[in-house]
């Protein structure tokens, strides 16, 4: 995660020019698009649109009273024998886990998939203290062995082929090369099973934190989150402070939307509702339970009602699958763990706009993300707000700002517009038929024009403008 001011052009072109990767991204996202479409169809879920509206209202209510619900969940978790730990930033989360492991004398930690702990770079910190932290979601485990970050919120290793997986397993586990995904899965299962049974601490994320119950809700398909929260002596759940919902009843809204939007499943294979350590009469389960609540930049978004909406996100990944930009450039060309449209709005807000000012511009504003968002976040609106902020912060040169001011002035005045249109059409060079403007040698080789035309093109202007054609047709009648 290096400070940057522009998009990683070279890496993006590499992705675009890799036919295997392009096919992998395209087919994986298309599959998720199709599954979601069936799952939220009128036949399958008649109340879908009402549920979206309700989910938006519940999240809005919770975020608007976030201090109240944070205090409520703290009271409830404590009453159930657990402990709530507030952390300002990623470092504090790592410090907490590190100290806990030291204090309890635990060396092995199992982790189930959690985007929030991806923010923390927990594994690096723990390893530097001779502690072992093992990712246990199959995709995340492969990424950990390959030293990569997730490519997609719900399909973290979608860019890896079975041959990549075979390489990673052989190199790290010393097993014989195996290219059958079913057998590869068995190898990972056997290795990780040992870790689950040995580990003293299990770390999970939380899809929802139910304030009124003092519980975390974790959804998954593999069973690794169940194992991480049930087998080790200590369970630590790490969640962003925005993950709260008021009560268990609200799950009737959110669980119906999350699985369907993410993978098209009405419910994922496992949904765990976990509140505190095991009770006295329960045969098994963790002896200690900690809920770590991370700010990590989230409170910066609260003051502005439009930006606040970014915190409604339930991390289903639907906006990634439907985004024409994500589907071409993939997950690793976004600067942080969150990719796609949601990454483009939360990354600059969590980190400050100065760090990745190009990110809100990496969108065609087509609106597909808002259309499929299960909690109705108006992502394009937030992108526009962030673009305005970048412009006002002076990150854009005075030349560009002047050019757009002029553009706006012309666009808002029909007479000026048609005058400039006529002038442009008259003086514009006319390439031979079929050619486009960027094929010309001049003036398209001038720096600003050349940069603009490097990504897009215009057909040559028609000899007679639409407006004048319209006029003469009307006159002829």
């Amino acid at each position, binding site marked *: 995660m290096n400070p940057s001011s522009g998009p990683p052009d070279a890496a993006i072109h590499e992705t675009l020019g890799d036919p295997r990767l392009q096919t992998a991204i395209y087919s994986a996202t298309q599959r998720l698009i199709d599954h979601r479409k069936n799952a939220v169809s009128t036949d399958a879920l008649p109340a879908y649109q009402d549920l979206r509206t309700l989910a938006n209202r519940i999240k809005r*209510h919770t975020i608007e009273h976030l201090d109240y619900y*944070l*205090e409520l969940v703290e009271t409830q978790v404590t009453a159930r024998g657990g402990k709530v730990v507030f952390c300002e930033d990623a470092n504090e989360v790592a410090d907490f886990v590190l100290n806990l492991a030291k204090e309890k004398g635990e060396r092995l930690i199992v982790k189930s998939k959690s985007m929030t702990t991806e923010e923390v770079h927990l594994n690096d910190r723990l390893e530097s203290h001779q502690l072992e932290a093992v990712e246990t979601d*199959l995709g995340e485990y492969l990424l950990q062995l390959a030293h990569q970050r997730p490519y997609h919120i719900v399909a973290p290793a979608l860019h890896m082929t079975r041959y990549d997986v075979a390489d990673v397993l052989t190199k790290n586990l010393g097993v014989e090369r195996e290219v059958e995904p079913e057998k590869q899965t068995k190898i990972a299962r056997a290795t990780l099973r040992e870790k689950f049974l040995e580990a003293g601490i299990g770390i999970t994320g939380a899809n929802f934190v139910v304030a009124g119950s003092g519980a975390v809700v974790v959804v998954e398909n593999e069973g690794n989150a*169940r194992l991480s929260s049930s*087998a080790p002596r200590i369970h630590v759940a790490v969640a962003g402070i925005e993950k709260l919902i008021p009560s268990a009843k609200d*799950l009737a809204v959110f669980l119906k939307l999350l699985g369907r939007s993410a993978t098209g499943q009405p419910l994922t294979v496992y949904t765990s509702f976990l509140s505190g350590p095991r009770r006295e009469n329960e045969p098994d389960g963790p002896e200690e339970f900690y809920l770590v609540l991370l700010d990590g930049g989230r409170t910066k978004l609260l003051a502005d009602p439009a930006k606040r909406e970014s915190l409604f996100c339930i991390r289903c990944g639907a906006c990634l699958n439907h985004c024409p930009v994500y589907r071409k450039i993939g997950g690793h060309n976004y600067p942080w763990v969150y990719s796609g449209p949601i990454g483009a709005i939360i990354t600059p807000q969590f980190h400050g706009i100065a760090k990745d000012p190009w990110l809100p511009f990496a969108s065609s504003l087509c609106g597909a993300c808002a259309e499929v968002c299960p909690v109705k976040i108006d992502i394009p609106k937030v992108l526009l707000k962030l673009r305005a902020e970048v412009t006002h912060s002076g990150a854009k040169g005075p030349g560009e700002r002047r050019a757009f001011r002029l553009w706006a002035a012309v666009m808002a005045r029909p007479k000026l517009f048609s005058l400039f249109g006529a002038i442009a059409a008259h003086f514009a060079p006319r390439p031979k038929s079929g050619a486009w403007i960027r094929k010309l040698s001049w003036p398209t080789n001038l720096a600003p024009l050349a940069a603009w035309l490097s990504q897009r093109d215009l057909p040559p202007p028609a000899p007679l403008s639409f407006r004048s054609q319209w006029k003469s047709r009307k006159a002829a009648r």
Partner: protein
Amino acid sequence: MSARENILGRIRTALGRMPGEGIAPRPNFELQIPSVPDRTALFCERFEALAGKAHLAADASAALETVKAIRNGRTAVAADHPLLAETGILNLEGVEHSFPDAAARRQACARCDIGISSATYSLADTGTMVMFAKPGEPRLVSLLPPIHVALIPASSILAGLEDLLARVADPAAYSSSMVFITGPSRTADIEQILIRGVHGPGEVHAVVLTYR
């Protein structure tokens, strides 16, 4: 100042709220309980659509025979649940149960081929089994063995999630763990290829006790 105070302070400043201030009325909605004429039939249909295997048992001895057939001589560990005692499953030769301590049970769960439990409720419209951790119902029996068999009284099959949440307003009041199990453990992390049994059981059986 602690992180807690700082975070709450920033939130209150941003939202213009005072410490201890109450809340506006919560968005209210009715739980719409789906109408399901034959819950057992719908549960079995949905459960099997997800590659679960459903069996109907008209009396205790049928349930016992079903479990014996599934087991087919393999090693098994069972929850100490009255339903399992009543059907005679706990008396089957070689079915391990009633462990002296948690460590012994955990070892058995890690070793055995089959875990046998009950489920407190089931949800017909998603083919889901709902398990609460409670006395006689450990978490690991349905999780560690590669095959999971659950006995389900037909009367405990609910229409769906809304039905459950209408009956159990706060699951935390009953148990530290409520888990929904909807089919066998699965992953599609390698090339989007569906593989069952990655960490949890790859084979799940529901024995529906139609007489209960």
